[in-house]
């Protein structure tokens, strides 16, 4: 027996260009032009009771459409979907809430819309409020809530409506980390009670711990299906193959302040691992990384600090080095020269990182005021490739496991 059965499901959307262009543009009775768009093609899977399926894929790959069909909000164009028991879904951050009603009234409404009687809902109200952590806000109108708060209330409510099938689209990743962890814990608890869970998310780490199976969607078709490890690996590979590294010029949050370089010392070229145009450098974890900063001093400068930094695309400052920190005395810069930074074994794990380099008149003050001699906030992207044995997370270090037993212990 399966709790969720999806058989040969395809979904066609009629795409209307300018759907509400109004009378002036297209006349009152003529329909706007329609194009077919297949959001899903021949999706076929089953999930047993108490099972958890995670759906991963790029934006627009059909994840949400698939979950909306399982939740029963959209009808499949072809194929059929069966879900046994009470299907509770959170498909968007607003979770069907009414902005003018209080959090408490919204919990009541959502509960009754999902078919629970008011007595049951009242009985679980305290548990819902305490899980959401919104005790202080629960009697305020929902329009005063932040997106994260709405999701917390939505998930708290949904998970307390005794679902047989819980469908969660994406939204979990918008709550704060503590709540995410609680949500994953709650989802696991529901699984133990026999609830089937379907989730889509970009937070691959959470999924891996919650789901026993993952499915990779690409342009509406299943590209890979299997254990979390396999599918995540396949997903990563595809992203790399598609050149879908962080697009160059992608706005980067949290890097150094914007600067107005004086160009008293100008960076004439930046060479990374021998590549003179380092907009895309691939480095394997544990292999060397060399950065050469070629400069030209327009006038004698005795206070220059050279800096190399790496940022993740979410703004996390991953690593930085500067010449003062390392105790390198540059003396007075005149004319041209090269400052080199060598990492014999660069230890970042798989992922893409922005490389930021610059020359500054001192170590800290100029960094906060943004007065640089020269600054290239995103000179290129360092694409790290790791092996399983390098470890997981952001950083890898040379390491060895050992195991002793008996007399040697």
């Amino acid at each position, binding site marked *: 027996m399966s709790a969720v059965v999806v058989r040969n499901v395809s979904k066609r959307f009629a795409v209307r260009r300018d759907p509400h262009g109004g009378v002036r543009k297209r006349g*009152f009775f003529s329909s706007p032009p329609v194009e077919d768009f297949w959001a899903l093609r021949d999706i076929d899977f089953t999930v047993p009771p108490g099972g958890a399926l995670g759906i991963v894929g790029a934006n627009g790959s059909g994840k949400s459409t698939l979950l909306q069909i399982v939740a*029963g909000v959209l009808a499949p164009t072809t194929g059929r979907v069966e879900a046994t028991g009470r299907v509770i*879904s959170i*498909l968007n951050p607003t979770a069907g809430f009414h902005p003018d*009603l209080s959090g408490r*009234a919204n919990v009541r409404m959502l509960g009754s819309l999902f078919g629970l009687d008011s007595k049951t809902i009242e009985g679980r109200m305290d548990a819902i409020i305490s899980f959401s952590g919104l005790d202080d806000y629960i009697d305020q109108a929902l329009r005063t809530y932040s997106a994260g708060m709405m999701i917390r209330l939505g998930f708290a409510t949904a998970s307390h409506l005794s679902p047989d099938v819980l469908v969660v689209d994406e939204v979990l990743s918008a709550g704060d980390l503590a709540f995410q962890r609680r949500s994953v814990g709650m989802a696991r608890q529901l699984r133990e009670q026999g609830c089937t869970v379907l989730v889509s998310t970009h937070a691959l780490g959470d999924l891996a711990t919650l789901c026993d199976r993952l499915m990779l969607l690409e342009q509406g078709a299943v590209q890979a299906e299997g254990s979390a490890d396999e599918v995540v690996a396949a997903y990563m590979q595809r992203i790399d193959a598609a050149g879908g590294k962080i697009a160059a010029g992608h706005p980067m949050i949290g890097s150094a302040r914007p600067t107005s370089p004086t160009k008293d010392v100008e960076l004439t070229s930046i060479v990374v691992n021998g590549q003179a145009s380092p907009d895309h450098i691939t480095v394997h974890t544990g292999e060397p990384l060399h950065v050469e900063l070629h400069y030209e001093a327009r006038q004698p400068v005795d206070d220059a600090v050279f800096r190399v930094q790496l940022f993740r695309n979410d703004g996390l400052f991953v690593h930085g080095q500067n010449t003062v920190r390392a105790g390198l005395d540059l003396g007075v810069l005149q004319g041209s020269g090269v400052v080199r930074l060598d990492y014999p074994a660069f230890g970042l794990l798989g992922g893409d990182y922005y490389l930021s380099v610059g020359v500054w008149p001192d170590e800290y003050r100029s960094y906060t005021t943004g007065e640089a001699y020269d600054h290239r906030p995103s000179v290129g992207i360092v694409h790290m490739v790791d092996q399983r044995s390098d470890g997981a997370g952001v950083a890898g270090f040379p390491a060895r496991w050992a195991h002793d037993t008996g007399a040697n212990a």
Partner: protein
Amino acid sequence: MRLLSHLVWWDMVSLYFGSWAGLLWNFVLPAVVILAYLAIFELTPGFRFGGGREVVGGFGINLVAGLIPWMLFQEGVSRASSAFIDNRHVLSQIPLPAPLFPLANVGSALVRHVVALGLFAAILIWSGLTPTKLWLMVPVLAVPLLLLTAGCALVFACLTVLSRDVAPTVGVAMLPLFFGTPIIYPTYMVPETLRMLMDLNPLSGVVVAYRDVLITGRMPMPGPVLYSFGVGALLVLLGVVLVRRIGPELAERL
């Protein structure tokens, strides 16, 4: 059915500012409308409803007797026209039978209708009119009125999904319809040439019948009421067909 009653409840609560006091507004508003019209037309001398003929009751009372069924229709239909659009945040989230939403609008309008009727009856009795057995006809007359309201609600709610221009058009059409229905004038004041048009209006029969049983104290003519019932039933049928046609695609069209 339980779901519908929940939705009616939420609709009434959320109609005005979503406060619990909002629920109170559902009673205040009909009261204010009725009292205002009565005050103006009953207490100001010179208004006569009959246009020369002798009729039972003053202008205000006759006007309000027609206004009460009209308010149910007008309010139910104009709010239901945008019901699917207004509730898209729910429809794109929870699989619910779509017709519930326009019907909830009609339901909450019906509650206000009952409140208005109760209040009006109290005023009539207080002003010296003796209630007659004919008043018991009101629930019967409410059936064709409800069918008309629910039918239009479903049809226009569906059409609004296909073209957003429908909801505002419905709103605009309400004013001519108001004057095209014998609410502020008795039927015999309508010139012969326009008589046909008024008879075609399915609301006319119901409105006149409400006035007949509440004020004039005569049995309504069965013909016009049955006509209203027939048109109402057809509209509901059309509404159901439209919901069936659009239903599966509703969430993606919103």
